[in-house]
């Protein structure tokens, strides 16, 4: 690895999803353009700067070039990707036409130092929970994090933390590379009959993306730069370099390919059907593990669900939109607590295989009444069925009276006495559960408490 960092030039448009036009426009002037999003483009500044006579000149040229095509962009140049991105963002806000923001060589750590670590989330694909954790440990700015030794961060927070450190320290233009002897990761699909419809190509992209990410996954790696190529029967070609600091998962690869193809179709540059689709993981890095946080999900479905949940909470109130959180306990109503969705940070996973002592054996009932319903339970003679002091039943139950209807019972199991909180006189409860089956094979869970029978749950 070279000691002199490579200067990164970033072009930033305030609207990230600005369509293919900006890419087309800049790609004419700059080869090897890397696309993070259609409004965020990155390249090495070395070549273009030499060509245009200096970094400042080059930056101004690109701003004008984009401006002529109708895109008001900012340009930033710095030693690291994060710094270049921040500089470009600052530049985009500096007026029209924008003034480029150029951080002198070696000046990146200083420039980053006072920026808050939140920037790593937006611009560096760092997990928001990790940054939150840094915050709680007293690390708020990039400078705070960069001051700590990298190996210590790696040991404590793993590869994800180490990457965040690289970003904060301005050391991120050379992400950890796989050695040259490792296999290349690519996947391609040849279409025997040229395809003129977008859908089958996107479907193939999904298959290729799955293959590629599976192979990378087995090697403990993620793809950070993807080269996506599509060719038509007439030799027309669309090739793009997509970059994502945190790595691509299969869904994100498919999304990029879709953007690329849609842009290509819209530009009407193809005169024949597609015969080749190739994906190459051009730059890889160590896998950091998948986030499983509820609202920081990585898939489109997770994002859609999060948005819809927020909207639902707006319609019925936050307390009325809930998720099941494992809580344990012996009573069916205690096993899961429905907790407001927006208050839950990570989904709770039930420890498997440890039965709760005193709980009812599975299967669990499909309907659990949060407020038990009073019912009548009588035997063949019409007398009420009672559970005695030693937990024994007075006579076989024959009829369940519920909501004005009578259900003939064919069998039952129990009773199982339970004593809750015997140490707490206010909340002390003694009850007994009883399962009953009626003549249409409906099954019900009853509880005898305070000398009455209650419907607790239903096996629907």
């Amino acid at each position, binding site marked *: 690895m070279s000691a002199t960092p490579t200067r990164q030039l970033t072009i930033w448009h305030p609207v990230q999803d600005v369509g293919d036009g900006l890419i087309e426009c800049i790609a004419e002037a700059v080869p090897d353009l890397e696309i993070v999003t259609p409004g965020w483009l990155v390249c090495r500044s070395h070549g273009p700067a030499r060509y245009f006579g200096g970094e400042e000149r080059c930056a101004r040229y690109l701003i004008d070039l984009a401006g002529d095509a109708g895109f008001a962009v900012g340009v930033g140049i710095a030693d690291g990707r994060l710094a270049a991105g921040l500089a470009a963002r600052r530049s985009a806000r500096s007026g029209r036409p924008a003034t480029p923001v150029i951080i002198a060589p070696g000046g990146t750590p200083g420039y980053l130092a006072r920026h808050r670590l939140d920037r790593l989330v937006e611009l560096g694909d760092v997990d928001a929970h990790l940054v939150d954790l840094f915050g709680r440990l007293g690390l708020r700015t990039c400078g705070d994090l960069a001051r700590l030794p990298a190996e210590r961060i790696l040991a404590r927070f793993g590869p994800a933390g180490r990457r965040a450190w690289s970003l904060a320290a301005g050391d991120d233009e050379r992400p950890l590379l796989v050695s040259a002897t490792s296999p290349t990761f690519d996947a391609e699909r040849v*279409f*025997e*009959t040229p*395809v003129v*419809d977008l*859908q*089958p190509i996107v*479907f*193939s992209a999904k298959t290729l993306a799955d293959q590629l990410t599976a192979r990378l996954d087995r090697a403990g790696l993620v793809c950070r730069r993807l080269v996506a190529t599509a060719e038509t029967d007439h030799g027309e070609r669309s090739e793009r370099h997509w970059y994502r600091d945190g790595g691509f998962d299969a869904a994100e690869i498919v999304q990029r390919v879709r953007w690329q193809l849609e842009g290509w179709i819209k530009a009407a540059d193809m005169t024949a059907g597609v015969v080749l689709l190739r994906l190459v993981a051009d730059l890889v890095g160590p896998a950091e593990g998948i986030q499983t946080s509820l609202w920081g999900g990585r898939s489109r*479905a*997770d994002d*859609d*669900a*999060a*948005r*819809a*949940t927020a*909207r*639902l909470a707006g*319609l*019925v109130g936050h307390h*009325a*939109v*809930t*998720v*099941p959180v494992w809580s344990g306990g012996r009573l*069916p109503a205690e*096993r*899961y607590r*429905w907790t407001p969705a927006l208050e839950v940070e990570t*989904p709770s996973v039930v420890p498997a295989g440890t039965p709760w002592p005193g709980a009812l*054996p*599975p*299967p*669990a*009932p*499909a*309907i*659990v*009444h*949060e407020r038990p319903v009073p019912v009548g339970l009588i035997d063949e003679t019409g007398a009420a069925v009672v559970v005695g002091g030693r937990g024994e*039943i007075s006579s*076989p139950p024959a009829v369940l009276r*519920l*909501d004005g*209807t009578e259900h003939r019972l064919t*069998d*039952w*199991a*129990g009773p199982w006495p339970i004593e809750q909180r015997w140490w707490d006189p206010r909340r002390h409860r003694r009850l007994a559960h009883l*399962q009953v*089956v009626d003549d*249409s*094979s*409906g*099954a019900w869970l009853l509880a005898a408490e305070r000398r009455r029978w209650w*419907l607790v*749950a239903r*096996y*629907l």
Partner: protein
Amino acid sequence: MALPSPADPSPALPSPADPLLADLSQVDPTLVTATALVDRGRGLPVDEVLAPTLTALPRGHIIACDGGAALSLAAALMARSTRSGSWVAVVGFTDLGAECLAGLDVDLTRLIRVEVTSATEWSECIAAAADGFDIVLTDSSAVGVAPNVDRSVRQRIRGRGAVVLDIVVPPAGPSRHAHRGLSSDVALEARPLGWRGPHRGAGHLSGRRVMVTAHGRRRVRPSSATYWMPAPDGSITVER
């Protein structure tokens, strides 16, 4: 017009026991298999064991489930999709047993529950849920659905391709009138045949046999299959 790719592995014969595919293939002849439905993003995957009933949940459609094992059937039908990344919104079903769903392999980390207090809230929430969730579970006949609401709900679920599982909870008593619910594309009846486990006080509920009958809109003859739902070991199995 899309050209199929030559390496497409889906078999060519329709599954005769699946009433929905029979209905759909009359509309679109290329949708002859569940693989086609799922692969083209038109259907959500269903555990293979339920293939005699439904091989996929068709997006944009309403599946009604009634009978004494309706909720268990619905849970079983959606389980595989939740494990593959689809989210479920439960609207208006407040007494839902989460542990039962977990036992039928539904991924509870992708489920939210919405409590509604009026028919208006219900229809607004169904619409909002259909926009962001692949699967919506509800019991519309507890709410009552007017024809114009029915139409607008159908339109909304077609938009994103949500699947509505509409449970009809058999009333516990005659005082609970079932209102008119959503119109359905497939009607599934899950009738319990018997329980194994209890014996005059001894034992406990452990396994249940259920007969599931599927009625499609255009089908003349409904099809049936019998399952253990659940079997004593907690799984779902087909009874041959």
